């Protein structure tokens, strides 16, 4: 990247300088990134080995390191999308309206444990958790309540559900939109639909085996995009966030999502589709964690890696297929229950990483995240955090402002290198379903989590308020409580639904679903019929359980 004469002179100067500071005293800590990359005192042009045009270039064209669009935030600011949901769909609707009035530009549904796991509130194993950790979306009526009075034709909605329940939940949503008179061909939104979230980041309650989950995920992708039923929808977000929360590092995070993405692409190619038919609607969901520069390097490296993967491995022709688009959530695991206001600062720094890193959509955590669901006030502050960056800080004046920093360019290259190697390691085990089933991914997660826990307990990783300047676990001023009556409300909603629906017709349709499952055909067409007729999420998922049996995840201790 630099002229030879200049570099020679620099090399000589650097050697001189290194020698002169050989014995300079440094603090007794390890100077390395969160993922363990050792870091030098200074970085100079000598460290930037790559060619500008190959590795850095311009935004909106290969190598895409600097961004997926030519104008990035000058053209359109990232979508401010706060993950939220609690109690009942009606209450969630109110919170969504509040956030929208305050400047949110995208909606995101956080669902409760029963929706995630495809269970109805009549199941006594889980009824105490109705609405306690997210919004209950058990049937099509819930979708109407959730979106009442909201411009879902103009504003995109993210449904954060995973392959086990993504088909019925999306079908309910699309049916609701149609009944509202909207054209689903122009409907915008996302489904997380991420197989690893429900099997590695979280132990699912009575789900089915990974190979079925992979197929279900691809069914939704296939039906929405290449089959052009909801062509503007993003049917999947490969989610590294949850595994990051589980303790793996930045390199592993990218490794996991890329390996997962390739398995899905392979599945769709096997079904006869061409890469360019669907790849550009595949998106990612990453974390913004503690190490400021490593995270930014990670995002830049990710864009470069994806473009290469699509071009070299899959021979994508359409440049749109090489664009790495992602949503970011700031790291929940970095927040503390002790002195919660400090979390505002943590989240702000992480939001800055995300935006300097060029994300398309961002969720910022509320400061009470470590204790309960956010209060209105806390979620407002989270939103304003983003707006201070977009409206007051002027970092949006130019694209990829950190490009050219010797440290950042070097770190981007280094992260990229390590990610390629990690992808190899995972793929040696097999496709993503195999990596799951054999327990390989669980083991990586377990080891990483133990490592982090040890680092924290030894004080090598600092958590202010916990292992440095510790304070007792105090009562914060306001704890958000979800509606205790939610379970009764939801049970009644379903009772009313069952009264008005045509139960005989539904039975026939559910039988049809059984057949589709047995023959392993795409579930979406019959799912649209079944949810329109008023099937509940428990009824649908119980059929999955019946036909494909409940899977025992290989929990690594």
């Amino acid at each position, binding site marked *: 990247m630099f002229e030879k004469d200049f570099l020679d002179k620099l090399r000589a100067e650097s050697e001189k300088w290194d020698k002169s500071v050989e014995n300079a005293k440094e603090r007794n800590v390890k100077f390395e990134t969160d993922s363990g990359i050792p870091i030098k005192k200074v970085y100079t042009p000598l460290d930037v080995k790559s060619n500008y045009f190959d590795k850095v270039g311009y935004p909106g064209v290969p190598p895409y390191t600097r961004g997926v669009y030519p104008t990035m935030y000058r053209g359109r600011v990232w979508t401010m999308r706060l993950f939220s949901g609690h109690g009942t769909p009606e209450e969630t609707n109110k919170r969504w309206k509040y956030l929208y009035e305050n400047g949110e530009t995208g909606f995101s549904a956080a669902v409760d444990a029963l929706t995630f796991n495809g269970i109805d509130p009549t199941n006594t194993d889980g009824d105490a958790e109705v609405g306690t950790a997210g919004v209950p979306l058990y049937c099509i009526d819930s979708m109407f309540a959730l979106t009442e009075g909201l411009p879902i034709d103009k504003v995109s909605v993210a449904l954060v559900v995973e392959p086990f329940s993504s088909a019925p939940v999306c079908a309910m949503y699309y049916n609701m939109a149609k009944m509202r008179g909207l054209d689903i061909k122009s409907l915008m939104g996302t489904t997380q639909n991420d197989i690893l979230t429900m099997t590695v980041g979280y132990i699912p309650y009575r789900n089915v*085996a990974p190979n079925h989950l992979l197929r279900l995920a691809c069914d939704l992708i296939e039906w929405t995009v290449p089959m052009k039923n909801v062509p503007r929808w993003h049917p999947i977000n490969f989610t590294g966030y949850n595994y990051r929360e589980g303790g793996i590092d930045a390199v592993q995070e990218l490794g996991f999502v890329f390996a997962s993405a390739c398995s899905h692409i392979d599945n769709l190619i096997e079904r006869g589709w061409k890469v360019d038919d669907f790849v550009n609607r595949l998106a990612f969901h990453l974390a913004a964690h503690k190490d400021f520069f490593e995270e930014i390097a990670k995002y830049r490296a990710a864009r470069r890696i994806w473009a290469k993967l699509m071009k070299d491995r899959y021979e994508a022709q359409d440049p749109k297929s090489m664009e790495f688009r992602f949503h970011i959530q700031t790291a929940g695991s970095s927040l503390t229950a002790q002195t919660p206001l400090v979390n505002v600062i943590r989240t702000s720094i992480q939001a800055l990483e995300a935006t300097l890193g060029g994300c398309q959509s961002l969720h910022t955590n509320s400061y009470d995240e470590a204790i309960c669901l956010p209060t209105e006030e806390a979620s407002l502050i989270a939103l304003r955090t983003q707006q201070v960056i977009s409206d007051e800080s002027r970092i949006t004046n130019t694209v990829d402002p950190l490009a050219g920093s010797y440290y950042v360019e070097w770190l981007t290259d280094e992260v990229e290198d390590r990610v390629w190697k990690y992808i190899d390691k995972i793929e040696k085990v097999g496709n993503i379903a195999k990596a799951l*089933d054999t*327990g390989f991914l669980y083991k990586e997660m377990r080891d990483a989590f133990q490592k982090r826990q040890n680092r924290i307990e030894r004080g090598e990783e600092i958590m202010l308020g916990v292992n440095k300047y510790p304070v007792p676990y105090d009562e914060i001023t306001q704890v958000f409580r979800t509606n205790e009556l939610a379970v009764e409300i939801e049970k009644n909603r379903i009772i009313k639904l069952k009264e008005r629906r045509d139960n005989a017709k539904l039975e026939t349709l559910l039988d049809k679903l059984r057949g589709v499952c047995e023959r392993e055909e795409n579930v979406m067409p019959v799912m649209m019929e079944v949810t329109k007729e008023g099937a509940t999420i428990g009824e649908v998922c119980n059929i999955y359980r019946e036909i494909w*049996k409940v899977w*025992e995840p290989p*929990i690594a*201790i």
Partner: protein
Amino acid sequence: MRKTYDIETLIQNFKNKDKVALAKLITLVENEPDKALEIFKHFDNSDKDSYIIGITGSPGVGKSTLINILAKQLLDEGKSVGVISVDPSSPFSGGAFLGDRVRMTEVSLDPNIFIRSLASRGHGGGISRAVFDISLLYEAFGMDVIIIETVGVGQSEVDIYNLTYTTVVIMVPGYGDSIQIQKAGIIEVGDIYVVNKKDLGGEDIVVQLEMMLDDATVQTGWRPPALMTNSISGEGIDKLVEKILEHKNHLELSEALKKKKKNRFEYKIRNLLTYKVGKVLESLISEEEREKISNSILEGGKYKIYDLVHDLFRNIKFEKKKESSK
């Protein structure tokens, strides 16, 4: 908060089929083996014997999941089942992570099943000293079938063979198959071989197994079958139950069952005798004396080890008490 147990009350409740009493008696025999004498005094010679099945195999092959389905089938047939699941204790901390129960949640609420997890506590790596006692308690409780699950580590396959009537060995594809099979003793110990997780490809192992079983000496006239199962779908389980029954019938018809029962008791008697003698020795030879020996060996006397130990017995004489004249 530690509970103190009144054995009399416990036995009373136990005879009334109270599971809480059974659980507490198990804790007693596990923690205070000397109480076993007092406990079993209360039981008469019953004519009901339980059928004891052993399930062994390396960690992760799916033993607990298989037991869950196996137990379910037995419960459906109206049988009562007692399960003992042994997991290894950490040789360093002495603690243990007992994670077999988590695979048996489905059957755990049936009134006719009782599941107990045990840590091996330094006993031979795969099995616990208390297993015999607990199986005896289960018999006294009236269980039709007892299933003992252990991790196939070292000697434990042989141990379990001594404590059960039908031994089932479980394997999965992909673990360096032929090495696994040739592990010393395994091919002679199993009455039934099961290759689980057949969806990952089991036909090759079954073929190898069949070849080895053909070669192995068949001592009892029972040629062990090699089966394939899938513990998630339940495929192959009914065949397993069938084969277990077949084996049981074979044992009964050929009088081998009687031999096995005798062997079970002989095994325990040997252990009990060794235990009792060991205790006596502990009282006769002090920790200090042993320490003295190992210290002198360290200081250059290692070839004297036999001498020194023999010397210890110079002042000890074992004698049988004279029979008191009747």
